């Protein structure tokens, strides 16, 4: 009996401290959606690792709730709203990845629960917050991505001198593509670098897009989510793809994704870095250094690359000025 009691007591001593830590730890809820390649898992990885370094070991000082939506499109919105409703009062921090931030914000803006967008496009972040360089003054901050349409067109004019026609290929069913399309549409004349922008919707079918690319004598095109998903089919156009990646691609994995297809150059933001930065912001809030209202949004790390292999396939001459400017040259 005593042996049994002692055994039970011993087991309790092992269990109870865990329960105590869990009871005192912070709860961080990740809400992310289905988007290739890894559905923002690199964000979580970077976040967790950095938090651990900063003294928040998972399962002890911090607990993570990871919610992944069923799809990448608007059909996931009910899932998002349910998750926010469930956790809005129980989480110490809710991290929303990508366009999920927008529907989640509709609920969280009525609460005091801190929200970090990790990451969103800068254009999306500007819808939520008036400034990216000042304290938000509300319960949301985060990391924003900086591959604006203007930068892509600037890169296109550098790589294809005299380019006049560029196509933005998107999928109208994907919110991220639509948001980016809106950014293209709102681009000021000066920011278009004398390039006429054509909008081609993959929802009409890839073949239709290919025909239009040819018919309109497009000189280069690009896109984010939709066009990345259809990159192999679109390679049939034999047109250079100059684009930006909103995907959670890491620098080390870049070469793998551009081996095939016509992606000649682009900008991307490694998502892991965003997770790491979000962790620093969260730790500051948890440690009481700053409140969420005082936490200024941070930019993602930008990386520029040129794929000489694709350029070679397409017989493109890449100017030296472009080569010396980029971070990565894939030979």
């Amino acid at each position, binding site marked *: 009996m005593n042996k049994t009691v002692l055994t039970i007591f011993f087991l309790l001593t092992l269990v109870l401290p865990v329960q105590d830590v869990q009871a005192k730890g912070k709860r961080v809820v990740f809400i992310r959606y289905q988007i290739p390649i890894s559905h923002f898992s690199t964000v979580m990885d970077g976040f967790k690792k950095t938090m651990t370094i900063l003294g928040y070991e998972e399962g002890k000082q911090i607990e993570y709730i990871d919610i992944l939506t069923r799809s990448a499109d608007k059909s996931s919105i009910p899932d998002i709203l349910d998750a926010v409703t469930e956790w809005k009062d129980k989480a110490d921090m809710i991290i929303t990845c990508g366009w999920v931030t927008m529907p989640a914000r509709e609920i969280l803006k009525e609460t005091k629960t801190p929200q970090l967008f990790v990451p969103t496009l800068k254009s999306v972040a500007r819808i939520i917050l008036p400034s990216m360089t000042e304290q938000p003054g509300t319960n949301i901050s985060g990391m924003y991505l*900086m*591959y*604006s349409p*203007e*930068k*892509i067109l*600037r*890169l296109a004019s*550098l790589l294809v001198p005299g380019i006049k026609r560029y196509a933005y290929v998107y999928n109208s069913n994907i919110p991220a593509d639509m948001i980016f399309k809106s950014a293209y549409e709102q681009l000021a004349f000066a920011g278009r670098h004398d390039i006429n922008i054509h909008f081609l919707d993959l929802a009409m079918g890839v073949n239709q897009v290919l025909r239009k690319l040819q018919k309109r004598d497009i000189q280069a095109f690009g896109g984010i989510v939709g066009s990345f998903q259809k990159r192999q089919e679109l390679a049939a156009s034999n047109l250079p793809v100059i684009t930006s990646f909103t995907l959670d691609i890491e620098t080390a994995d870049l070469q793998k994704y551009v081996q095939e297809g016509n992606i000649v150059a682009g*900008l991307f933001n490694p998502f892991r870095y965003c997770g790491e930065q979000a962790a620093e912001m969260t730790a500051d809030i948890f440690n009481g250094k700053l409140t969420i209202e005082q936490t200024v949004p*941070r*930019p993602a*790390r*930008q990386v*520029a690359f040129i794929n000489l292999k694709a350029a070679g396939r397409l017989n493109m001459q890449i100017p030296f*000025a*472009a080569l*010396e*400017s*980029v971070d990565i040259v894939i030979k």
Partner: protein
Amino acid sequence: MNLSNIFAFRFKSIQSLFVAGIILLITIASIPLLLTGTFIINTITSEFGNEILHKELNSLIEPITLRYKILERIGLEDSQIHLNEIKTNAINDLRHYQYRKTGSIFVISRNGATIFSKELSAHDASSLNSLLTQFKDTQKMIEYHNATTRRIAVTQYFPYWNAYIGLAMDKKELFAPRDLFIIISLTVLIFMLFFASLCTLPIHHFIITPILRLANYADQLSEGNLQAHLSGTFILELATVKKNITGMVNTLINREEKYRAIYNAPRDAIVLHEAGTGRFLEANEAIEAMYGYTREEFLDLTIGDISSGVPPYAMEEAEKKIRQLKYVDHLRFEWQGKKKNGQIFWVDVSLRPFFHDNQPGVLSVVRDIDDQKKAAENLAAEKEQLAITLRSIGDGVITADNQGSVILVNKIAEKLTGWSQQEAAGQTLDNVLRLVDTKNGTPITNPAWEALSTGSHIELSGNVSLIAKDGSKREIADSAAPIFDISSKIVGVVLVFRDVTEKLRLEKEVLKIQKLESVGVLAGGIAHDFNNLLSAILGNINLVRRELEKNSHPYALLAEAEKASHRARYLTQQLLTFSKGGEPLRESANLAEIINDNAKFTLRGSNIQYTLQTPDDLWQVNIDPGQIGQVIQNIIINSRQAMNEDGGYIEITAENCCSCTSNKILSSGCVHVTIKDNGPGIPANILERIFDPYFSTKQKGSGLGLAICHSIIQKHDGILVVESPPGKGTHFSIRLPVSHTISPPQTASENIAIASKKQLHILVMDDEQMLLNLAQEMLTVLEHSVETASNGSDALNLYQKAMETGNPFDVVIMDLTIPGGMGGKEAGTRLLQIDPRAKIIVASGYSNDPVMADYQNHGFSAMLIKPFLLSELKEVLAAIYHQ
């Protein structure tokens, strides 16, 4: 040793002056070179240093800027990671950079925060901010102190960091070449000064010492010691100089003696004065003869002592003249001097500025001109007297030289010719004295030429006119006479002339008046005879009318004839008035009738309308009706002639006036008559002259009409004035004194009744038998007994006889004028001597004869103007009888 001693020491000799000069020369030559060189090097170092440092800094900043530019190419300019990386790497590079020995880089943000600096970190915030202000001027080189050294820096603003990047180095290192240049230059300068000092020793011995001896010798000479001796060794050119100077001294001694002799030779006093004060410095020997002072005494005097002292000849004026020499190089004037014995005398003074011992002075040369001055004064006085005499002569006098060039023109000649003395002097006589024939205007040869050629006195014949400078013309009487000098040679001519225009005009006027008087006498004679004839006509008509029925046609015809005879009687009265201008025969009369009759008569046959307005109670005036009628006629004739043939309008008014003027006579009451026409009026410039005798604007006017009017009104103690307001015609205004002796309103019938009370014994004297007959007839009608006489003697005889026979005459009627016999005036006087109680009536056609006008004072009881009417005769007889 004070400053003055140092100064004295330096320039005590040529030697010290030479040394000082050498040092000064070297210094003056070197210091500017040193300063200029230093300045140039400094400037070059600053400019090039600034440029080099800027270039160096740019070479450091350009790669960093390029990195940022590369980011912008592909849109990574906002990638904080990239930006941080570039900045970190760049700052790390800059931190290890070193320029030459002391150059280094610093970076200071725009808000003053030090990003990194090896040296500026020691500066406090205020000094750093001060430097930051200087950094903003990135074109200049900035200078500042750090802890140990003086640094200079250039900066550039780097916008990517919002900071200033600066390259600083020690100033000493940058300006090392300049400092080296200064050290070398100063060393050379000191060496040169030392070498120059060594050179002065032989120069002193061989050059300066002989020069000093020469200078000393020259000093002695300048002090007047011409016997001074020059010793010592002289080499080269100095030996020549010595020889030349001693030669010059000998020459100078000889010349000094010669000039002194010349200086003392003239009789003129030569005096040297001090410029500022006029003090005497030197004088020649002539001063003693002129002023009586010895030379030594004279030099102690002042100018005031040798001047008369009579203003302006005193010290003050003399100083003033000396001061004037500052502005002129020569001054000459006369001065009243005073000798030692007090005698005042005139001198001629000539002043000239000069330099004496390098001091400004005045040289005066004084000449005694007392005798000359007195002679000149006498001559001038005589000349002045002659000029005054000439210019005071009442005739024009012009003198000219033998070439006919005018010398003198006196005042009258100036006035007549229009040439002033100044204008005429030097002109030819023909210009100044332009003579023409009065009758035909042809030029006449000036008598001066004939006088000059013949040497005799020439007088101009009459009818010579002088054309004055202004073109006016006047008749002159002229004569010319040659002027002879002592040797009887003709040296000029004098012309004497006078204006005879007025004289001739007066002569003409007198002639005219004489003619008029002749006409007047003739008119008077005719009037007298005419009067006699009228007396017969009028008297007989008068008598015949008595015989006729008043309503009969013959009676009316005779009445008209009688009226015409009356008019004729007035005409004769006017003729008589005109001829003698006699006193008015005043009687109390009503002007209205006189005005109306004369106006009507004058305007007969013209298109001129006239109106006469008079009050019913118009006062009587004491006038000569004939003369006043003549006045009215003349004025209206004047208006009629002034108005055009289309006619006009004359408005005449007569009104009583209580006290219309300040005139004593008129102030007790007058009748004011105005005659206004609507003619063109009289121009203002001739308005005042229209009453002048012989003034007429009409070609055929005598110029006497209005003059007679004025004369008549004046003799009536009245006033005649004329006004001619522009555009309102001519207004004549006549004021005549009111009569205070109103004639008793006796009618002729009453007089007749009175006269008929007594049958009178009447003597009538007249040279005209026709009139005697008429008088006899009239008096018979009046039932008087009548006897007649044809002259005064007969009348006196008859009167005396009648007295002796006891049938004396009650009344004697005498004609005033008996041609070739005793007239009424004399006969009346003698008759009164016979019978002082005699009642004598003087009768005459000369109504304005003084006797008629003042018959009572001539002893007459009454007067009758021929021709007279029966009623008038009866009235006069009644009056005498009444008396």
